[in-house]
C-alpha cells in the first residue's frame, strides 16, 4: 500500500544519488514540485529519463543533479531550446552529461514494455534514421512469422518513477485524467514510485474505466497543490504559457538562471 509522506520525506527516502529517475508527464501534470525538491536536496549523479525533458529537467540539469539524460525530444515546447541542457552538452556546465536518445515511439514502447515486465519492445521504427548509430539500446530483429525486419529497444525500468496526478483517495488510490501520457506506464515500470497530487479526497469520483493507479502499485504519495505548475493539471489550473516563454530569457544566462534558482527553489521549502 502507498505511504502518505511529505514531499521532502518522499524524495529523501526514495531518491538516492546515482539512481535512475524517470519524472514523467507529457506536457500535462509535469512534477515540477518534486523536481524542485530534488534540486533542494542536492541529489547528484542521477540518470534522468523523460520523453520530453522540458523546463523541469533544464532546471535539474542546470542545478547539477544529472550525469546522464535519456530522452526523445528536449526542447521548450513552442518556444525553443533548453539552454541549460545545451550548456551542459555543448560546454559541460555545470558538468558534462551523457545522453542517450530515442524517438517518441520507441520510448513510449520502451516504457510500455517496462510496465509489461518485458526486457524489450518491438516496433516498426527507426527505418533509415541515424539514431541507431548513436544509441546502442536499439537493435533490429527479424519477425519469425513474416521475416519483416523490426526495431527492438531495451525496455525502460527506472529505479524511481515520479509523477504528478490530480488526486488520491485516503487509501492511496490515484486518479490521472486528461492527457495521461506515459504516467501509468512509468509507475508500473519502476522499482519505486512517488506520486504528488493536487489533493487527497474521500472519494476519487472516477468513471468505471478511469486511469487509476491502485494504492498497492504506488510507493509514496505526497500532497503538493499546484505541484505541476507552470505545467497544468486538468480541472485545477491552466498551463502558465507566459512562464514557458519567460524561461527562455532566464535560462540563456547562467547568472540569471542561478538567481532564479536561488529565489524560486532554494529559498522555498517543500510543502
Amino acid at each position, binding site marked *: 500500500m502507498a505511504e502518505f509522506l511529505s514531499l521532502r520525506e518522499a524524495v529523501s527516502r526514495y531518491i538516492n544519488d546515482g539512481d535512475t529517475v524517470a519524472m514523467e508527464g507529457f506536457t500535462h501534470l509535469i512534477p515540477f514540485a518534486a523536481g524542485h525538491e530534488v534540486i533542494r536536496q542536492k541529489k547528484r549523479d542521477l540518470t534522468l529519463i523523460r520523453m520530453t525533458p522540458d523546463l523541469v529537467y533544464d532546471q535539474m540539469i542546470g542545478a547539477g543533479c544529472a550525469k546522464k539524460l535519456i*530522452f526523445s525530444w528536449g526542447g521548450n515546447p513552442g518556444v525553443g531550446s533548453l539552454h541549460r541542457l545545451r550548456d551542459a552538452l555543448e560546454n559541460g556546465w555545470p558538468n558534462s552529461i551523457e545522453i542517450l536518445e530515442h524517438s517518441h515511439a520507441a520510448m513510449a514502447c520502451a516504457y510500455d514494455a517496462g510496465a509489461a515486465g518485458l526486457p524489450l519492445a518491438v516496433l516498426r521504427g527507426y527505418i533509415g534514421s541515424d539514431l541507431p548509430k548513436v544509441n546502442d539500446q536499439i537493435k533490429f530483429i527479424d519477425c519469425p512469422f513474416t521475416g519483416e525486419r523490426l526495431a527492438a529497444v531495451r525496455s525502460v525500468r527506472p529505479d524511481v518513477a515520479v509523477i504528478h496526478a490530480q488526486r488520491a483517495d485516503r487509501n492511496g488510490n490515484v486518479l490521472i485524467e486528461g492527457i495521461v501520457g506515459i504516467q501509468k506506464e512509468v509507475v508500473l515500470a519502476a522499482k519505486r514510485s512517488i506520486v504528488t497530487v493536487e489533493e487527497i479526497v474521500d472519494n476519487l469520483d472516477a468513471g468505471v474505466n478511469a486511469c487509476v493507479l491502485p494504492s498497492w502499485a504506488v510507493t509514496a504519495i505526497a500532497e503538493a497543490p499546484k505541484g505541476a505548475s507552470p505545467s497544468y493539471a486538468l480541472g485545477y489550473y491552466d498551463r502558465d504559457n507566459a512562464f514557458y516563454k519567460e524561461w527562455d530569457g532566464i535560462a540563456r544566462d547562467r547568472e540569471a538562471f542561478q538567481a532564479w534558482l536561488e529565489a524560486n527553489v532554494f529559498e522555498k521549502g517543500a510543502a
Partner: protein
Amino acid sequence: MSLEFTSSEMMSVTAARALTSEMTCFVGIGLPSEAANLARLTHAPDITLIYESGTLQTRPDVLPLSIGDGELCESALTTVSVPEMFRYWLQGGHVSVGFLGTAQIDRYANLNTTLIGDYRAPKVRLPGGGGAPEIATNAKEVFVTLKHSKRTFVKDVDFLTTVGFGRDGKARDNVPNIGRGPTIVITDLCILKPDPETKELVVHLLHPNVTREDVINATGWEIRFADELGTTPAPTAEELEILRSLKARTDAHHAGQQ
C-alpha cells in the same frame, strides 16, 4: 484586388491548402499545427487532427503552445495514452498524413532535428527526434513545412533524424508496410515535390513575387525546377483574415495565461 501578406502567411496558407476534410493528420507543433488548424477553420472543417500527446480528433480554438495544452484535450473526441497513440493509431495505420516541421532538410527530403555539427561535440544541439522518425514511415504520406534558407536547405543533413528517401534516395525501396514518405514540401518561397524516379526535391510552384534566383540563393544544393513551373495562388482575403484572427486569439490567450 491586391492583398498585403507576409511570406510566413503565404507559407501557412499554402500549407493549409494541402490538407482536405478527408484526411487524418498527425500534427507536429509550430508551423504544421498552424497550417492544420487554418485548414480546419477554412476549407477542411472535417479534417481529423491528432497530436502525439494522445488527443484524438481535436478542435482547439487557439493554437497550442505545446503538443499537450489543455485546449487539445478538452476539445478532443477522446484522449489516449502516449503508447496507445504511437502503437494503435500511428503504427496501426490510421494516419493518412504526417505533417512535420524540421530544422534542416536535404535534397532527398531527409530531416534533421538532432544537431548541427558532430554528434559527440555538437555545434548546436537541437531538440531531437520526437515523434517524427516513426510518423515519417507509419503515416501514409508526409507533408513538410519550413522556412527556406541556405541553413535549412542543405545538400546532406548533418544527422539523419527522420528519413525522407535516405542518403541515396532509395531508403524506402523494398521496405514493407511503410508509407510513401514526403510528397510535398511547403516553404515561404515555393512548393517542392520529390522527383518520381530519383526522389530529389524539385520546385513545382513559386509563391507570388518569388523568383528562381530567390530559391537558388536560399538552397544549399543545385536546386532543380519543374519544366512547367507554376505560381502558387495568393492567399484570399478570407484565408488571411482567419489566419490573423487565429494568431491574435492565440497570442492573447498565451500572454494572458498566468
